């Protein structure tokens, strides 16, 4: 294939879902399920095929494919903001995940949402999300990236609140939108600062020239990296802006799978990996990244231990896995982080979609305490879910194992991470395996605790997408070497972490940890496993409730930020600045009133006014007359 052909395919990549979105949103309710589903899924098929084609064209000789469309606007004589795409190994991984996993989730969603009356709107939003996400990962400059960044935020908002008739969904959508906006503001300021300091916004140029203009440890890259980290933290639901993700589970399950597990929430990881040139110049910020990741993975793992809603368990698990990615980026192990991003996209999408299938079979029952015994009743879903959990726990052989080991293996001797964070990662792995086992026991073992008959879904589409995802989850680990070789030139500037000096027992501990977790869960959660009774009593201790509500962050923010803000709003209800402007209106009204009252229709008063005014004129004329006489 010649070069112009490749460029053309790359250019058209985000166009298919865009066309599909425009078709679906403009024709809306007039389309039947078959037409709407085939348009949206067909566009995704085209996108996935073209992304496979362009990824194939990447090689050692042509590590970068670019496609410049047009100039968006000019910022300074030297810096033009273009609408142009830039494909290297890193964005190749991302478009592979976005279009590949996106396609499978679209297929699943077409089957899952078949009965919904707003099916067309749903598929349109999903397509729009893919467009925005592709813009984000393919952007060659930070402004276009920011456009995609806000685009995915918008789609996330629209899809969380998709069932807008219920108030909780709308509140969750609003919360997600506002909380991520905090991060986005930080990121926007970071971009301004970057442009002010370097005059550049093209990503490749920034990464290249960063260490020419700055030294390691300068203040400018420190602040820029910190602000970019703020954006990443918001989007990727890391501490301290993580509160929106569990609530975002109010959206339909395919949305949780696509946006809040596989793709959008990893945008923060992508941003940091993309801007590694700046981050490498700020070792302190790299340390912060690692610590943010480590704390998030521990806290989210702890919160996942006590959740009763199956989707919330998965949401907290997503946060904790993204914590791993952040930890890896912070430690300087960029390609390991990106690798985990990919495998996580596979198995977390699988987990969410299977959970969706189970929820559908149980007539929208999401409470784990009302499941149980599903291994025998839903063997297909249960086995796929188990595959997903095995990958999540990183048992040897699964894709999660390869990626998580790649991360953990490099933490110990990394300059910005070190043994403490290594232990954090190990503790996180332990927590992961414990909550995975708890989830498994509660949902699949024990006796059935539900009374409704199962509504088994026989949709071939649904099962097909689940199967493909399961295969990807199992064998995704085989891509490790391929990814490593191709990502190495992208992250050429990152120092290679020398792991030869590590103690030998590290690997043994890392591999053994999940098994310890399983054994612990086997004993501790025995009553979930062998329960003979029809109902399980949930624990209501203070600690459980505290963990269930996201470790009190929601409460803290409510009292720290929301309450004072609402109070201020109430206090300033009539808007002081508005009042200043209303002073004009008040003055005009006053004049109006005065003149109206003078027009009272009373003849005698009119006559008196005429007389008085005449007298006044006479007096004035007289004074003038005296004045002119005096001057004469």
């Amino acid at each position, binding site marked *: 294939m010649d070069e112009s052909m490749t460029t053309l395919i790359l250019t058209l990549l985000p166009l298919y879902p865009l066309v599909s979105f425009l078709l679906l949103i403009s024709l809306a309710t007039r389309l039947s399920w078959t037409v709407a589903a085939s348009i949206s899924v067909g566009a995704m098929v085209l996108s996935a095929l073209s992304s496979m084609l362009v990824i194939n064209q990447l090689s050692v000789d042509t590590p970068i494919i670019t496609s410049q469309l047009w100039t968006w606007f000019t910022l300074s004589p030297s810096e033009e903001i273009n609408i142009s795409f830039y494909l290297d190994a890193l964005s190749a991984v991302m478009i592979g995940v976005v279009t590949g996993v996106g396609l499978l989730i679209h297929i699943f969603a077409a089957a899952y949402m078949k009965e919904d009356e707003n099916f067309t709107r749903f598929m349109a939003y999903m397509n729009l999300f893919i467009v925005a996400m592709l813009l984000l990962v393919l952007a060659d400059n930070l402004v276009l990236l920011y456009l995609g960044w806000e685009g995915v935020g918008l789609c996330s908002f629209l899809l969380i609140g998709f069932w807008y008739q219920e108030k909780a969904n709308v509140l969750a959508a609003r919360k997600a939108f506002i909380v991520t906006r905090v991060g986005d503001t930080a990121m926007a300021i970071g971009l301004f600062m970057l442009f002010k300091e370097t005059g550049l916004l093209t990503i490749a140029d920034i990464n290249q020239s960063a260490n020419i203009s700055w030294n390691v440890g300068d203040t400018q890259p420190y602040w820029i990296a910190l602000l970019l980290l703020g954006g990443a933290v918001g989007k990727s639901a890391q501490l301290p802006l993580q509160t929106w993700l569990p609530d975002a589970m109010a959206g339909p399950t395919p949305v949780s799978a696509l946006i809040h597990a596989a793709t959008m929430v990893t945008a923060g990881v992508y941003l940091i990996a993309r801007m590694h040139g700046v981050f490498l110049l700020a070792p302190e910020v790299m340390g912060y990244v690692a610590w943010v990741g480590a704390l998030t993975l521990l806290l989210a793992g702890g919160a996942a231990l006590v959740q009763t809603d199956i989707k919330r368990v998965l949401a907290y698990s997503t946060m904790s896995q993204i914590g791993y990615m952040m930890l890896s980026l912070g430690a300087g192990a960029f390609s390991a982080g990106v690798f985990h991003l990919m495998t996580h996209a596979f198995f977390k999408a699988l987990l969410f979609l299977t959970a969706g299938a189970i929820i559908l079979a149980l007539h929208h029952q999401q409470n784990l305490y009302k499941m149980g015994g599903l291994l025998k009743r839903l063997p297909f879903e249960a086995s796929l879910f188990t595959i997903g959990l095995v990958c999540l726990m990183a048992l040897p052989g699964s894709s999660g194992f390869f990626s998580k080991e790649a991360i953990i293996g490099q933490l110990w001797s990394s300059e910005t991470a070190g043994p403490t964070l290594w232990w954090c990662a190990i503790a996180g792995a332990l927590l992961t395996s414990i909550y995975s086992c708890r989830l498994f026991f509660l949902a699949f073992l024990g006796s059935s605790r539900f009374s409704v008959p199962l509504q088994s879904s026989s949709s071939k589409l649904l099962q097909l997408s689940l199967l493909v995802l399961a295969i990807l989850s199992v064998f995704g680990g085989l891509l490790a070497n391929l990814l490593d070789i191709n990502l190495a030139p992208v992250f050429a500037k990152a120092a290679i972490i020398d792991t030869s000096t590590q103690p030998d027992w590290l690997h043994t501990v890392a591999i053994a940890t999940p098994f310890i977790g399983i054994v612990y869960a086997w004993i501790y959660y025995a009553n979930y496993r062998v329960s003979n009774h029809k109902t399980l009593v949930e624990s209501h201790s203070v600690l459980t409730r505290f963990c269930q509500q996201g470790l009190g962050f929601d409460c803290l923010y409510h009292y720290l930020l929301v309450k004072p803000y609402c109070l201020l709003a109430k206090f300033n209800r009539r808007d002081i600045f508005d009042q200043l402007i209303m002073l004009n209106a008040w003055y005009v009204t006053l004049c109006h009133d005065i*003149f109206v009252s003078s*027009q009272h*229709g*009373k*003849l*005698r008063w009119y006559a008196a006014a005429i*007389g008085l005014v005449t007298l006044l004129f006479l007096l004035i004329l007289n004074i003038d007359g005296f004045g002119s006489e005096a001057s004469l």
Partner: protein
Amino acid sequence: MSVIPLEHILILASILFVIGFVGVIVRKNTLYILMSLEVMLNAVGVAFIGAGSVWQQADGQVMFILILTLAAAEVAVGLALLLQMQTRFKSLDIDLLSKLKG
């Protein structure tokens, strides 16, 4: 015949005019208002006559005849309105005619 100074005439005219004006303002009865208007017109007439005699010109007397005609016409119209008012409102209170307020 001794000549009356112009100042005296003007003072008399002014006093008459002010009396008429005050009458227009303070009286509520439309008939009295018309009468006060006559007083004001006559005050002006006095001023004209006085000025005409001081400068030995006929113009002042011409003007007075003009004013007299005007006053006659005005009184004719005014009294007609007065009759209408009496039939409509059963009263001559001028303040009742305040429908044209803003």
